[in-house]
């Protein structure tokens, strides 16, 4: 029997993106990939499908019979309207009868050295990458050199910056990652872009990030072409003193772009080229940390590294910059244990509630044997990462049925994992992976107050149960087996592993009596309601202190140690009469 209604249900985040594609709506692919790096490959394919969907609609719309006003012809192309003009030429919209679609035609100014323009354009035409504007062709017609390329609909990053303000770190990192890939493709052909700025990057309607205006592209290290082809404020300092453009200069410009995306400003400003050179020479530049104190440290470090004046100290290549950005955002993605991006409509359709955990050690606690059953997991016993807190008594975990390890007040307890349409009782040390669903089945012989927490690799603790608005609430009545976290609006809810981590840990506390401090903490944390997606809230240090205050007090364990917060709680509760504990640690598969 499928756990989730659909035995082959995809990741909810992938499904949400797929839904937008099906609707023909926009998807912020960069942000999606940055938030869900484990889905990046599938999202990339989905983006391709979105492009195909859009292209087919566009091709249908480009019926040959549509009348167009042709201003003039350039070879086979029917030139329709002028889109703009830059230092190296004019850009027109044109109809390509061979491709049967509208294209952008860039015509070099008359007098432009044709051989240079053609040679560069031919090289650029060899760059094929989803994040680089596609060049359809290059030629000289009627004495004018030109290249025609895909026509994009969207806004430049500069326009977005003006209309919507600065970006957050995650969104900017997503843009940066896509631009790193674009630059890697360009650099692989021996070219450099030469003018990576917010004006030369388009965010298409569908969310695709496209690096444009390759007209400044030059051969890496080619001094003859001239070193300062780009925007001075985005140019690497060595270019201002005559060095040849290379990949590292492009990466510096990308770091400037990211700086600008999150601050709206340039790291180094000046009124003239000489002043700019002087500013670089003196090492005077804005600090990203000072400009945006709220940005994650990893993101700040990744951008600052790209802005190092000495090119030898910067990223060696675009791949290194991409890796730094991805790594910088990983803790943010992994630490998010809030609401899954799932609407109730989907819950109904899929027959399952999806909750997000990042998490953890499972500590199950039962009523009945005071001071007895704080349990280390089997994995924990073998693994030095597990609890460092003294544990009064080690009892084997008993996940699937009534065993001698269960206290008299607990009739049954199962900790279940759902995967690929099958449910399986798991014990500590079991493997989990993103997408797995987890839940508990429990029967008590007397009323029990149960609380579930988890802890992620970053040491953050989250409250998972009880959750308001669900069918299960404290105290759990004795008798039949009950599933935690319960159901909402008739839909069974499970916890779902939604982000990669080293370990998944659960903490469940049970007590014959309500644990007042825990109750207050959980009530303060749980914003879920019957008509909103369930959200797990982080337990901050203050609340952790309150939780540890349950029962008899003992000195608080220092809270800065990762993976130590729940251990401290376990230690505290193990000293409390009528409270039972057991811990499980599940390990993420390495694939």
């Amino acid at each position, binding site marked *: 029997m499928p756990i989730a209604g659909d035995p082959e249900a995809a990741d909810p985040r992938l499904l949400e993106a797929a839904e937008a594609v*099906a609707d023909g709506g926009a998807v912020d692919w960069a942000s999606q990939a940055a938030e869900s790096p484990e889905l990046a490959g*599938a999202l990339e*394919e*989905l983006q391709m499908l979105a492009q195909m969907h859009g292209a087919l*609609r566009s091709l249908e719309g480009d019926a040959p019979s549509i009348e167009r006003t042709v201003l003039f012809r350039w070879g086979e192309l029917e030139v329709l309207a002028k889109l703009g003009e830059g230092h190296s030429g004019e850009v027109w919209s044109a109809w390509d009868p061979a491709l049967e679609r509208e294209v952008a035609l860039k015509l070099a100014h008359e007098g432009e050295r044709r051989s240079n323009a053609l040679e560069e354009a031919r090289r650029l035409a060899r760059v094929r990458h989803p994040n680089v504007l596609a060049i359809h062709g290059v030629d000289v017609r009627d004495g004018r050199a030109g290249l025609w390329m*895909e026509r994009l609909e969207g806004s430049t990053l500069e326009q977005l910056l003006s209309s919507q303000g600065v970006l957050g770190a995650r969104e900017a990192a997503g843009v940066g990652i896509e631009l790193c890939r674009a630059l890697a493709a360009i650099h692989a052909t021996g070219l450099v872009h030469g003018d990576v700025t917010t004006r030369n990057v388009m965010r298409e309607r569908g969310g695709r990030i496209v690096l444009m205006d390759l007209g400044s592209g030059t051969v890496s290290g080619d001094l003859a072409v001239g070193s300062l082809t780009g925007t001075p404020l985005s140019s690497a300092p060595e270019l201002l003193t005559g060095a040849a453009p290379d990949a590292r200069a492009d990466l510096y410009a990308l770091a400037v772009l990211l700086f600008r995306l999150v601050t709206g400003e340039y790291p180094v400003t000046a009124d003239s080229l000489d002043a700019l050179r002087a500013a670089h020479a003196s090492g005077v530049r804005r600090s990203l940390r000072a400009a945006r104190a709220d940005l994650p440290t990893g993101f700040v470090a990744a951008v600052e590294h790209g802005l190092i004046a000495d090119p030898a100290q910067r990223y060696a290549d675009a791949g290194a910059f991409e890796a730094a950005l991805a790594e910088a955002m990983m803790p943010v993605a992994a630490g998010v244990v809030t609401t899954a991006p799932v609407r109730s409509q989907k819950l109904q*359709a899929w027959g399952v509630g999806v909750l997000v955990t990042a998490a953890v050690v499972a500590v199950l606690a039962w009523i009945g044997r005071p001071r007895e059953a704080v349990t280390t997991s089997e994995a924990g016993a073998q693994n030095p990462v597990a609890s460092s807190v003294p544990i009064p008594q080690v009892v084997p975990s008993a996940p699937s049925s009534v065993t001698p390890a269960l206290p008299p007040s607990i009739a049954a307890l199962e900790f279940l994992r759902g995967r690929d349409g099958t449910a399986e009782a798991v014990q500590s040390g079991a493997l989990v992976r993103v997408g797995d669903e987890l839940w508990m089945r429990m029967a008590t012989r007397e009323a029990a107050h149960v609380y579930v927490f988890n802890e992620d690799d970053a040491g953050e603790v989250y409250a998972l149960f009880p959750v308001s608005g669900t069918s299960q609430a404290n105290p759990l009545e004795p008798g039949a087996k009950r599933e935690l976290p319960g159901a909402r609006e008739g839909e069974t809810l499970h916890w779902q592993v939604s982000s990669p981590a080293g370990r998944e840990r659960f903490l469940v506390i049970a007590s014959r009596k309500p644990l007042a401090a825990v109750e207050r903490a959980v009530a303060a944390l749980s914003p879920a309601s019957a008509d909103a997606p369930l959200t797990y809230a982080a337990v901050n240090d203050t609340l952790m202190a309150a939780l540890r205050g349950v029962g008899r007090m003992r000195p608080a364990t220092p809270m800065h140690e990762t993976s130590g917060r729940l251990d401290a709680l376990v230690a505290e509760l193990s000293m409390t009469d009528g409270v039972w504990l057991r811990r499980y640690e599940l390990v993420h598969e390495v694939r």
Partner: protein
Amino acid sequence: MTPDEAQPPAAKPPLDSTAVLIDRYRAGDQGARDALFARYLPVLQRWAHGRLPAAARNLADTGDLVQVTLLRALSHVHEFDSQREGAFLAYLRRGLLNGIRDQLRRAAVRAPSGIDPEALASHEPSPLESVMGAETLAAYEAALARLPSELQEAVIMRVEFGYTWPEVATALGRPTPNAARMLVTRALARLAEDMHAHRR
């Protein structure tokens, strides 16, 4: 709610009569054949529009190719046993795709000797190939073929043929437009996962 969803399936033409039309045509009703032609010719012509490279368009008009394909498909309609409109459309699409490949091969045969037909075909991208790239399109076709038939039809109808949600619901026998939407959503997600898994 999307604009499509606001429109109940009943408001659209009775697409579910395709099975009836096929049965009538099998029984020799030429009017049913004309009705099938009228229904599917424009749909398939639009679909073929982006699939034929310029070289092939010089050899056979898209409309002719679609008509020939449709005639051929109907002459073999006894092989078609599904009652789903979506399955019939997928069947026609398969026939048209084969027809396009035949045209490309013929074009290559008539090319000067020494030119590899496959190479000729690959050097003359269709508009869709120009946008997507031949490799991606091939990966898409392969992954599509690996999907269960109902999910294949869901993707084809929505993504390739641009059917509205009510139309997809009717053609695939789904109770509501939203149910059709969920089916397409799941199909796209699985397709993307499969493409990724096979390209690694």
